[in-house]
């Protein structure tokens, strides 16, 4: 019972992750669908099919777990898509809305499934959408192209009982699920029992899909093989279920792609395993050999499909025969002695290996696969290789060039990566400890210093590699914006197109997590405030469709993300007025630089919108943008030209864990200032300093006047120097928060591994984190922007 529950838990977890991925890929496609439809009047068939398939896969997996709400919703969506496929000109924006809503609902259901293991509680919502979907379907089936008054989501609140026809459909699905899970030996292989036209589907299989199919099937084969091998030793219901599931999934996939032979084979294998599982017995040697050969045959066949060749499985009939025989024997309760079966297979496998070199001409086989084949042969016929090693060798050789089929990606637990990163951090600290130790005087020994340089180089490289392992492409985040732009544009009654550039750009996982919200706000602003209405655009002589571009690229240790629109640009006068009104700037500042004016919009509560709409206007968004980007130690620049557009450029350092820092000392305390915040440091002469009546010291440096902040006063430390001309002034500037910090002395520049402040301390003014110094003590890392703004706040 426990293991059952565990198994289900695991399956549900897999299902949820997989389905979320599916949903992520379906949304951009739905949007694409609309775009092609509006561009050419006809929806692109390929995209339509892809959306269809994605919903279909969702339904399939949901059926396996008996998640009725998802099944019914996806089914309805499928029906709608099917109709659209037959009648391509029919597509309407409402349809797209519906599909988007469907995917939203499924996402919500998935969240619930993850928490409570069932999809109950969404019936009402599901029915609502199903209703809408059906309303869309009905006129569609009647080919009523004009179709007046399709119910829009906002106006239709009535719910309808499911009609009898639909009930029947549910029953059919239910019975299918029952059939699938009951594992009864079925007389004829019937694949996935789906109502769709398979031949039509197969025609539209893209190479990309075929590749994914092959990869997935290979993975399944490998899993099944592993489980089978352990099953040989002990009876284990869980393992046999696992193999069963693998075969079942293979069958489903193959059926979907129209590979009848794989479908047949896996179906028969499934029967065998069904019996084994029911009786909870170990898999005897003979059965095992057959099953392993089946797996090999499937994975070979699948590999051939990636080359676009649909080749017959050479010993297909033989395998089918053996499987049927085993099923019969198992059913009659008689298990043939291993030896005769084995001989049977031995011969067959030997034939098979004779086939190998010839087959390779058409069939690229991955190196790992080759090993799998060999190991399977090993088991069945240990001396085949010894007898004729040439066969295998030549086979292996020919398999080499096809190594592109090998799984090049492995999944690693994020915790392991974080641990590795931590260790790398420790390594950097330890290295600093060694190199800074007074016992070693690097300058005295050339060989020694060379070795240190080498060590430094290697540890930096390790650091880079470790960081890069946490990097993921921005594509996921960017693609979500497609949907956003579409929804926003519809709401605002504008025509907006989103262009995505550089979605392959990889950034640290933390950046992905933090960047999503700012992007949403920036894009909202661009669509809501930036892009003008259609009429305004026409008047301005622009194309009716506005354009928003998001772009990502790497540049000198930073990642740049820009959000650009070709709208009306920021209104300098309006922003400035508002700034005066809010007391952020004074009337006299009228001539301030554009950039400084733009910066005002990041102030909390700043909004020039006369009316608060449900999209924007409360003045919260830009504040979120600024905060999140500051959290990532990023910078934000705005460029805007009236009538041409606005560009927000976000620059974020690639590594978040390690910075170059300047270590300074005040009294007994050491602080670290990020090098990126330091402009220069100097010892002032007394004539450079002016003192205001409030005793605020102002230092003049090349025509600029900067306030002096005495760190010892700010942090109540007993300093070595109180005389400005004896200590050091550091000109710091972070996000235009400028001042001169007065400290006792500079200790030196070094690489700093950032550690968060202990949670117990909560937030500390002007401190962003801490670091372990070369001597093992702790140093505080300063957050210049926070420090300066806190001083300014105190003053006012």
């Amino acid at each position: 019972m426990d293991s059952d529950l565990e198994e289900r838990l695991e399956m549900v977890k897999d299902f949820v992750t997989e389905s979320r991925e599916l949903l992520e890929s379906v949304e951009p496609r739905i949007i694409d669908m609309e775009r092609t439809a509006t561009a050419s009047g006809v929806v692109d068939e390929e995209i339509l099919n892809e959306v269809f398939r994605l919903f279909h896969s969702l339904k399939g997996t949901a059926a396996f777990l008996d998640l009725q709400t998802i099944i019914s919703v996806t089914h309805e969506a499928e029906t709608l898509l099917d109709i659209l496929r037959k009648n391509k000109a029919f597509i309407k924006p409402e349809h797209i809305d519906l599909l988007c809503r469907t995917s939203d609902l499924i996402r919500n259901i998935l969240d619930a499934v993850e928490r409570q293991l069932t999809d109950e509680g969404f019936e009402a919502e599901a029915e609502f959408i199903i209703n809408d979907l059906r309303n869309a379907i009905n006129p569609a089936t009647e080919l009523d192209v004009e179709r007046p008054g399709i119910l829009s989501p906002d106006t239709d609140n009535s719910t309808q009982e499911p009609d009898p026809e639909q009930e029947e459909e549910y029953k059919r699905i239910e019975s299918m699920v029952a059939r699938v899970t009951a594992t009864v030996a079925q007389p004829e292989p019937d694949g996935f029992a789906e109502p769709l036209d398979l031949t039509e589907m197969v025609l539209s299989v893209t190479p990309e899909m075929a590749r994914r199919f092959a990869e997935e099937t290979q993975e399944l084969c490998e899993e099944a093989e592993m489980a089978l091998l352990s099953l040989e030793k002990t009876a284990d219901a869980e393992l046999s279920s696992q193999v069963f599931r693998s075969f079942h999934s293979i069958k489903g996939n193959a059926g979907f792609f129209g590979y009848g032979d794989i479908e047949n084979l896996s179906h028969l294998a499934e029967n065998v395993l069904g019996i084994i599982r029911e009786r909870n017995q170990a898999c005897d040697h003979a059965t095992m050999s057959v099953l392993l050969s089946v797996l090999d045959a499937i994975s070979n066949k699948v590999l051939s499909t990636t080359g676009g060749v649909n080749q017959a499985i050479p010993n297909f009939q033989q395998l089918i025969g053996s499987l049927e025989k085993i099923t019969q024997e198992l059913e009659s309760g008689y298990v043939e002695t291993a030896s005769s079966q084995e001989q049977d297979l031995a011969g067959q496998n030997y034939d098979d290996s004779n086939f190998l070199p010839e087959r390779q001409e058409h069939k690229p086989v991955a190196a790992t696969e080759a090993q799998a084949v060999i190991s399977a042969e090993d088991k069945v016929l240990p001396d085949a290789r010894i007898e004729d090693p040439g066969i295998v060798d030549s086979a292996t050789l020919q398999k080499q060039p096809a190594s592109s089929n090998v799984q090049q990606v492995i999944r690693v637990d994020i915790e392991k990566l974080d641990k590795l990163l931590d260790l790398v951090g420790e390594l950097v600290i330890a290295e600093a400890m060694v190199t800074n130790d007074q016992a070693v005087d690097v300058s005295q020994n050339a060989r020694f210093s060379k070795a240190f340089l080498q060590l430094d180089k290697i540890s930096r490289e390790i650091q880079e590699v470790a960081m890069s392992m946490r990097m993921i492409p921005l594509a996921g985040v960017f693609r979500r914006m497609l949907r956003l732009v579409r929804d926003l544009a519809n709401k605002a009654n504008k025509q907006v197109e989103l262009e995505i550039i550089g979605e392959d750009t990889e950034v640290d996982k933390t950046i992905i997590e933090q960047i999503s919200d700012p992007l949403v706000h920036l894009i909202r602003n661009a669509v809501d405030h930036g892009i003008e209405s259609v009429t305004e655009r026409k008047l301005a002589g622009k194309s009716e469709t506005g354009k928003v571009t998001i772009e990502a690229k790497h540049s000198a240790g930073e990642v740049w993300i820009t959000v650009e629109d070709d709208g009306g640009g920021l209104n300098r006068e309006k922003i400035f007025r508002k700034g005066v009104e809010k007391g952020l700037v004074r009337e006299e500042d009228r001539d301030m630089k554009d950039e400084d004016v733009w910066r005002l919009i990041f102030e909390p509560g700043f909004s020039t919108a006369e009316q608060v709409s449900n999209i924007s206007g409360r003045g919260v968004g830009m504040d979120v943008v600024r905060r999140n980007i500051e959290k990532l130690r990023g910078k934000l620049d705005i460029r805007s030209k009236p009538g041409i557009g606005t560009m927000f450029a976000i620059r974020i350092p690639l590594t978040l864990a390690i910075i170059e820092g300047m270590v300074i000392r005040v009294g007994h305390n050491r602080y670290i200032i990020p090098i990126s915040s330091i402009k220069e440091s100097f010892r002032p002469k007394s004539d450079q300093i002016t003192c205001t009546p409030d005793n605020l010291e102002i230092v003049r440096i090349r025509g600029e006047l900067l306030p002096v902040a005495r760190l010892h006063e700010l942090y109540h430390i007993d300093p070595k120097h109180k005389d400005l001309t004896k200590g050091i002034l550091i000109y710091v500037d972070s996000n235009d928060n400028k001042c001169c910090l007065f400290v006792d002395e500079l200790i030196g520049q070094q690489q700093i591994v950032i550690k968060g402040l202990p949670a117990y301390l909560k937030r500390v003014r002007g401190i962003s984190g801490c670091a372990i110094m070369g001597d093992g003590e702790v140093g505080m890392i300063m957050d210049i922007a926070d420090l300066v703004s806190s001083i300014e706040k105190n003053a006012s």
Partner: protein
Amino acid sequence: MGAREKFEADLLEDEEEENEDTQEDKYLTFVLNKEDFGIEIRYVTEIIGIQNITEVPDMPLYVKGVINLRGKVIPVMDVRLRFGVEERPYDDRTCIIVINIDEQPVGLIVDRVLEVLDIQKSEIEPPPKMRKGKNNKFIQGMGKVGEQVKILLNANRLLFDEEESA
């Protein structure tokens, strides 16, 4: 599950139970300003000697700063200052008791550490009802050990009670 794994699982379970058993009613006792105090042993992760402390700005007086404990930065609190007792220069008997509550390790600076004592629940009296000052809230109970009395502290309040002690 094979027999071997099963045995191991059983063993592990036993061990856990034992751990819980052994932690019950045990207190780490320490001296602070001539009085003996105790803290439940289940909170204590380790005891280390005093080491260099890095000051953190803007902290309440009793939070002395942070230390590096094998690569981890943990805050340390001077329990004397927490009680509003005058500071005393650290010496070689001054210890830091590292306790861990809600995954938050904090070091407690005490004059010196004594021993681990078994104090049965029956031997613990509630905190005195009569109040004098603000420190009563930190007391969980008064443990009687022979002729002596140990003041048993409420670790949670010690760490997280926000109100400033005088």
